[in-house]
């Protein structure tokens, strides 16, 4: 019995091999010129361009467009590296990252890498303006328009109570990547709220999405430009106006967050290399609407970063040409 089975199996294997080899002869061979992907090996004088990609969609939009232009117009070989901010900045010193193309403030990192270690330099603003603040879902604004003034927040505190907030109103904080003064703000504006740390952008977005859908009371820390705004247009609560220096003492902050001029940071070595990619990064400048458009292609239309960039670049050739002057 076993012998028979063995013979049968060996025979089957032999036929399979024969069959495969025969059918294979018809296929295209690896290395045939027709099968190669367009010969993208041409690097020109640009060489390799190491572009950090921080994990949020707005950044991905900037990086997608810059990478697309660098590859198509300058012939660079772009290596995208998916990294968190801290690690990307560290990469300036070790020579593994050439550019960060959307930076939110990060004065501590600027001091460490630009002033002290001198491994990084500022490459100017991206043209985007970053807003940080407290946001509420649109249904809430429609139902209670006065909620957009912080003076009225205490009036509604009880509505914002949750299982986490210990009897007070819940102020949902906490994308850990962003600096927050909210605990001090709550204290100094004598608000009857407790800061609860959601812990991730995902958690914040889910909270707002659910709140809008089920008409729930949620107030939380958020920021724009952000792709989610085009799905649910959250509205920003007015806090006491920001004035220069009102946030220096983090214990005594009682004012809104400043408007962040988002900027680009490059490694010192890259800046001095004479690479055309550096000039591109330096000249790169666009509006919040531009970024939102590309972010929407990526986040909602599910396009790949490259396809999204291609679509935008083709529609905005004049802007791109200005960067390449």
């Amino acid at each position, binding site marked *: 019995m076993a012998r028979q089975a063995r013979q049968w199996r060996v025979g089957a294997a032999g036929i399979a091999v024969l069959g495969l080899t025969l059918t294979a002869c018809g296929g295209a061979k690896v290395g045939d010129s027709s099968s190669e992907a367009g010969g993208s090996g041409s690097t020109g004088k640009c060489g390799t361009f190491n572009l950090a990609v921080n994990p949020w969609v707005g950044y991905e939009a900037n990086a997608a467009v810059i990478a697309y232009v660098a590859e198509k117009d300058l012939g660079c070989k772009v290596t995208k590296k998916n990294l968190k901010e801290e690690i990307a900045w560290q990469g300036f*010193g070790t020579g593994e990252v050439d550019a960060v193309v959307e930076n939110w403030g990060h004065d501590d990192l600027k001091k460490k890498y630009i002033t002290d270690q001198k491994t990084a330099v500022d490459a100017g603003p991206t043209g985007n303006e970053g807003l940080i603040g407290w946001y509420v879902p649109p249904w809430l604004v429609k139902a209670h328009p006065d909620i957009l003034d912080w003076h009225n927040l205490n009036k509604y505190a009880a509505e914002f109570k*949750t299982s986490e907030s210990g009897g007070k109103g819940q102020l949902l904080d906490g994308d850990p990547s962003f600096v927050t003064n909210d605990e001090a703000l709550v204290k100094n504006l004598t608000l009857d709220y407790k800061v609860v740390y959601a812990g991730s952008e995902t958690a914040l977005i889910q909270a707002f999405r659910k709140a809008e859908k089920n008409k729930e009371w949620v107030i939380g820390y958020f920021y724009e430009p952000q792709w989610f705004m085009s799905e649910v247009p959250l509205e920003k609560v007015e806090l006491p106006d920001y004035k220069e220096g009102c946030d220096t003492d983090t214990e005594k902050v009682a004012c809104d967050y400043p408007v962040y001029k988002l900027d680009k940071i490059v490694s010192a070595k890259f800046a001095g290399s004479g690479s055309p990619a550096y000039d591109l990064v330096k000249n790169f400048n666009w509006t919040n609407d531009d970024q939102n458009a590309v972010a929407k292609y990526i986040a909602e239309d599910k396009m790949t970063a490259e396809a999204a960039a291609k679509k935008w670049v083709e529609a905005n050739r004049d802007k791109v040409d200005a960067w390449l002057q």
Partner: protein
Amino acid sequence: MTATVQETERPEKGTAVEQAAPVKRVREVDRSMMVAAIFVVWVVLFLVLRGRQTLALAAADLTDLHRWFNDANDSIGANRNSNPLFLYFFNEVRLVIDSLVTFVQELISQPSADRPVPQIGWLGVVGIAGCVSWAVGNGRVALLAVAGFTFLGLQGLWQESMDTLALTLSAVFVALLFAIPLGVWAGLSDRFNRIITPFLDFMQTMPTFVYLAPLTLFFLIGPASATIATLIYSAPPAIRITAHAIRSVPQTTVEAADSLGATRRQTLTKVLLPMSKRTVVMGVNQTIMAALAMVTIAALIDAPGLGKTVIQALQTLDVGVAFNAGLAIVVMAIVLDRVTTAASAREEAARRSKNRFLSRRRPLLAAGAVVTAVLVYLSHTYLWAAEFPGEGGTGDAVSSTADSVTTWVQDNLSGISNAFRDAITNGLLNPFQALLTDSPWWLVGAALIGLGVVLGGWRAGVTTAVCVALLLGTGVWSDSMTTLASTLVATVLVMLLGVVIGVWMGRSALVDRLLRPSLDAAQVMPPFVYLVPFLALFGATRFTAIVAAVVYAAPVAMKIIADGVRNVPATTVEAATSAGCSTWQIITKVQLPMARGALTLATNQGLIYVLSMVVVGGLVGAGALGYDVVAGFSQGQLYGKGLAAGLAIVLLGVMFDRITQAAARRTSA
């Protein structure tokens, strides 16, 4: 009941059991009385002293220790280029590992210098997977491997999967290179075992987020850092299990070898290693699983592969795509798990019936090898065999199904889920957390030490005292207590589920076979994939974090308890049945008491696994230590605090581990 059953089962031991039982019962009553007394005193003092000396620290506040950690981290970064340790040690290590990973990648996943595709295409890899699985395991797992790997291609994730496989295999290879010799050493020497155990605890419970950034400082961004991060987390199981395997070789066998005049070396290579091979392979299995659990985290430092797909999809909350990639990780894990398990079973079978086995397999294997060689050649030469054909239609189907299931759950279950969440939070979590965080620190510390002594004995008490002191030193005492409360609640839920499902699985092989793949999936599926719907159901709350921990930790407890129940001798159960016991009585009076060892082990492992989810919990609303670690990873000025919080998690883990292990030794003694 138990005593009589045991008497009929093992008459020779009957007297011993009868003698031991009453003494033991008295001691147990004593112990639970003392535990209750500690709690009563604690609660009374808590009511009096509530809110005093709680050592609370606001989210942005730092202690001197945290600032010192920051400075140390900065100075390492600043001196990296001049330090000889970097120039001659870390850089060399990095070079070796980088070239290893790049080599494997060019073999199976990435285009190499002069080729647009890797050296071995999909057909070759599938062939090799089948053939190797057959050689080390059996025909069934070979079929599973072929089907599994083909499925990865159908999902449209061939290249990503191969990148992940390349990285995982490299990390496991390097890990085993160190782990098996260290494990053998730890198995032979009690002293070395004692020295290495705390390091292993550290490697397994220290959250990866804490050392991810420093790692890229040491080994730069790239495959080396990702491999080393994976290795740190995945090597300990292999070391522990190898040591355990060497120790489990019967003393008499070793003595026999000694008396025959075998040298130490001969005893090791001819007796100890061959006899422990089967268990060592289980260690390899655990290492592979742990390595796959690191796939998404490693993607944060630019590790290529499936992790990247998951993270990118989650940036836009695209659960479908993330689930598809997560499923690929699960499929790979199940294939690798079944193959290694079959390999270890074959070790056993081969040892028993060596000759017959080999003579039949050899020609078949040779034929298989020839087929594989042809497949490899084809996939090297022809495009159709090199690049997986099709557009990944299966993957799209998986994604859209996952999406619609998620939407349905979110739309239809949120009413029920909120009631459940509030019941657990208000009924169990809040009071318990208040007791821990609002009591003065010295009271909680004293209570913990007291419980350590009562449950685990004096040595466990001393360990607890040291851990409590160090916890105070980390400066995150209050956050630690918050985390402790959630951890314990999660562990209680894990054990409830573990006992119910574990017993069910242990009693029915069919249930076991049906449930096991989902348990495996729960262990290796990247948590965020299932956390997005949970976030929609429960919001960003501590409860969501607890659910995440339960999903991850319960499978382990279930598997251990099922194993324990299954190991209760069939004759004992039969005797109980014939004595007229109902199913309920058999479970509660026979199977669970006799599986007590498994229950304590399950508690121990359940706790450790729950603790390893603290950081993920921090990402979905648990706050406390988990959030500290995550924030420390994201913001430079909080780095030191994150490190301190990581240390606190390790300390909690060590404390629990020592108490539960000591308690386990006492109950089984």
